[in-house]
């Protein structure tokens, strides 16, 4: 199995890692680099738990060999915090709106919503539903997740109320 040295920027920090050609980005992030928020629920591209941002776009990290993202910027849920180190606004909104139960789908939701709100900062309720529709959640029934998207999108950044 050929090994390759790749360079990633994960949550703004440069990482150099040697990986076999077949190593999945999800495993590379989780096990080689200890960004364990990237959860693996299916390795089939269907559940979305492993979603990370690759150069800002949400991708299923279980479907990408790590070597294919050499040189890319990766964002995981650990990297969605506020600049002061506290929870970011999407993370806060999820907690506040009870969008977190077992927490397994949560990191995939966080990064998906962060990316979505960049494209669509003032979503309608239907659009907010689209924002979470790419990640399966078996706990919440989705309504509280939709509420969290809308909450995070409020003009005050979901800071109050």
């Amino acid at each position, binding site marked *: 199995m050929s090994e390759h040295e790749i360079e990633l920027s994960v949550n703004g920090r440069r990482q150099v890692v040697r990986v*076999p050609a*077949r*190593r999945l980005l999800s495993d590379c992030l*989780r*096990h080689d680099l*200890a*960004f*364990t*928020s990237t*959860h*693996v*629920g*299916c*390795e*089939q591209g*269907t*559940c979305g*738990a492993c979603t990370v941002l690759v150069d800002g776009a949400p991708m299923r990290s279980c479907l990408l060999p790590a070597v294919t993202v050499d040189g890319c910027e990766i964002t*995981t*849920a*650990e990297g*969605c*915090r506020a600049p002061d180190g506290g*929870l970011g606004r999407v*993370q*806060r909104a*999820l*907690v*506040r709106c*009870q969008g*977190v*139960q*077992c*927490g*397994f*789908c*949560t*990191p995939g939701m*966080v990064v998906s919503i962060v990316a979505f709100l960049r494209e669509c900062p003032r979503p309608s309720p239907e659009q907010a*539903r*689209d924002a*979470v*529709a*790419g990640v*399966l*959640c*078996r*706990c*919440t*029934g*989705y*309504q*509280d*997740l*939709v509420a969290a998207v809308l909450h995070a999108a409020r003009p005050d950044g979901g800071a109050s109320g």
Partner: protein
Amino acid sequence: MTAPHVGRPVTGAAAERFAAGTGRFLDDLGSGAAAAAFVRSPHGHARVLRIDLADAERVPGLIAVFTYRDLTGGAREPLPVLIPHPSLHSPRTGLPLADDVVRHVGEPVVMVVAVDRYVAEDVCRLIRVDYEPLPAVIGIPAARRADHLVHPGVAGNVAARMMQENGDARAAVAAAPHRLTLRLGVERSAAMPMECRGVYARPDRDDRSLRVYSATQAAASLRFALAAILDLPADRVEVVAPDVGGGFGVKLVHPWPEEVLVPWAALRLGREVKWVEDRAEHIAAASHERGQQHEVEVGFDGDGQVRGLVVSFWHDTGAYTPYGIIVPLVTSTQLPGPYRLGAYRVEFRSLYTNTAIVTPYRGAGRPQGAFVMERTLDAIARFLGADRAEVRRRNMIRPSEMPYDQGLTFQDGRPLVYDSGDYPALLDTALTRSGWHDFATRREREPDKRLGIGIACYVEGTGMGPYEGARVQVDTGGHVTVTVGLTTQGQGHGTVFAQIAADELGVAPRDVTVVCGDTRRFPYAAGTFASRSAVVGGNAVALAARKVRDKALRVAARALDVPPDELSLADGAVVANDRAIPLATVAVLANPLRYAFDHRTRQATQFAPDADPDQPPLDADDAPGLDATAFFSPIRSTVSAGVHVAVVEIDPDTAEIALRNYVVVHDCGRPINPAVVEGQIRGGVAQGIGGALYERIAYGDDGRLRTGSLADLLLPTAHDVPEITIDHLVTPSPLNPLGVKGVGEGGVVPVMAAIASAVEDAEGIVLDRMPITPAELWELRQKHRG
């Protein structure tokens, strides 16, 4: 005095960790451990002829390969029948690794341990197992025909047969003015938590102990099971459930074969071993539920009042019965729902098939029971031309009849007695909230749409024993730690137990840390299942916290020299009229110390100024510290109840079924945290929608699994679950100090029934089995027309 925290939608600390991405799930642990993988049966039923390891053994990075022949001690024995029952006359369980015969796809045959999962899977692919396929028994009709047997010696494939009767139901049906016969069925689906199963074992040679982390719903029970099977003293085995990504019943099974094999291999190899299941394994090799077929005979009068109900059903239990007959037993006893049936007779047979085992999945047999009862009431309404809701009302048990004895023995071996409830009020509220009575008008307003409304009611026996326990400690910084043996998989135990303890001790919930599912911290528990944690565990927390409160008052009374009954706990302090001592100080005073190690403890040493030289530092019947343990053991289950109304819109061409509205009115006694309660209900309804419209585990007649990935086994997405309107009615349970009833599963129970009722209403076609896909509905339309 601070306002009570119980009853408020407090958010919890765990949610913040999960949102931050700093959860610690099973696969986040043990990064240096060796990885296990399994060669599993691709056949539904086959004889294992030969296992060829020659190629596999040459792979670099391989650590060990084990077949059944390599196993030792208890790992060679069949897995336990965890819940034996007198009616389970032919229990059968699998071996941790199959020996000569495999009985379902996914059954483990060879265990591989390697340096990482990639290598372990490479090795699995190089292991050649020769099988002689045997005829597979797939589905209830084939199991009933019994042309082939799943287990030699189990005649008719019948694992268990059980009958219960209250009154003479056959005579009551015969004597009733009207009679109907129905055949109803529900197919297989499964819990499908987003995190699959996983086990990580760390042997410690130096102190001859074993620590096992498992994504389990029953850490304490797994510990005792492993100690027994691996022949270790229980105090050398520790089981920890880390953060667990959903369970819904499937993670209650213990021990899974992998939960025996991973620790066994770790001990044998003297190194850490971890196995994390992938989704394909989970679908094939974990448990399923729901598959049942029912035959119903009902006798009723012209008002729709049921005079007698006779139900016979066949339950597909899969290849083995580690969980005994719990699922069909629950179906049989919860089927009567909130109704007074005149007379009721139920008989079931639990049948072996060559499919994955069937064990409780959220609702545990109740969705099938509710489906049968509610379909029956819809059939009565149709027969009489009566309103479906009205027929239900006429049969409902009245509040004045509470407590109501159904004359049946429930799954906990206790009489099924409904403790409290107001079912007609639940119904009225649901009808109002859903616009039931104005639905005809709504239909006229939207003539181009094919709309239907459906209703279903349920009760749920919750909060069963035997017991749960809790330890509550206040440390010398005033921080409270609540430790329970229960595990948590997202039900918010950390939040609700903190609320309960906070109220008892006059502190804020954020000053309470809750520790769940770690046998090192609390060894006794039954587990998180059957909507029991808030009821049994919550009351244990309350009782332990009350003991701590009493002691705090006693200690503070001595320090302040005022009688305890003039003291109260508020804002983190014991308060007298004009004075207050922080709880932290009381905690210091409650523990007479030998050594002073900081400024706080200096005042608690034997040389402290107020120590009485003529008294022992610790009273004879006392213990040091603000630290108490209590157990709550309920006499019998509490009974929650609810009514669901679904509005569907069906595409006239494609038969696609969309939910337009969904209303839930429920009663779980006193809600500890309404946000947690609503979250549980919404999640339950979503799983019910999955079971009604999307999820179906399908096997071919040869026993091959046809739905082996989440691309075939469809789970609902955000687009498939509508906004759910929830209303709470409260009848406190008289069976426990907090007055609570369980809510973890109720949301799922009546969903299939409500949606079937709504689809039937929209289409004018009778539905007798679930799930219903657009393709099937389309077929039904063609048949109906023809």
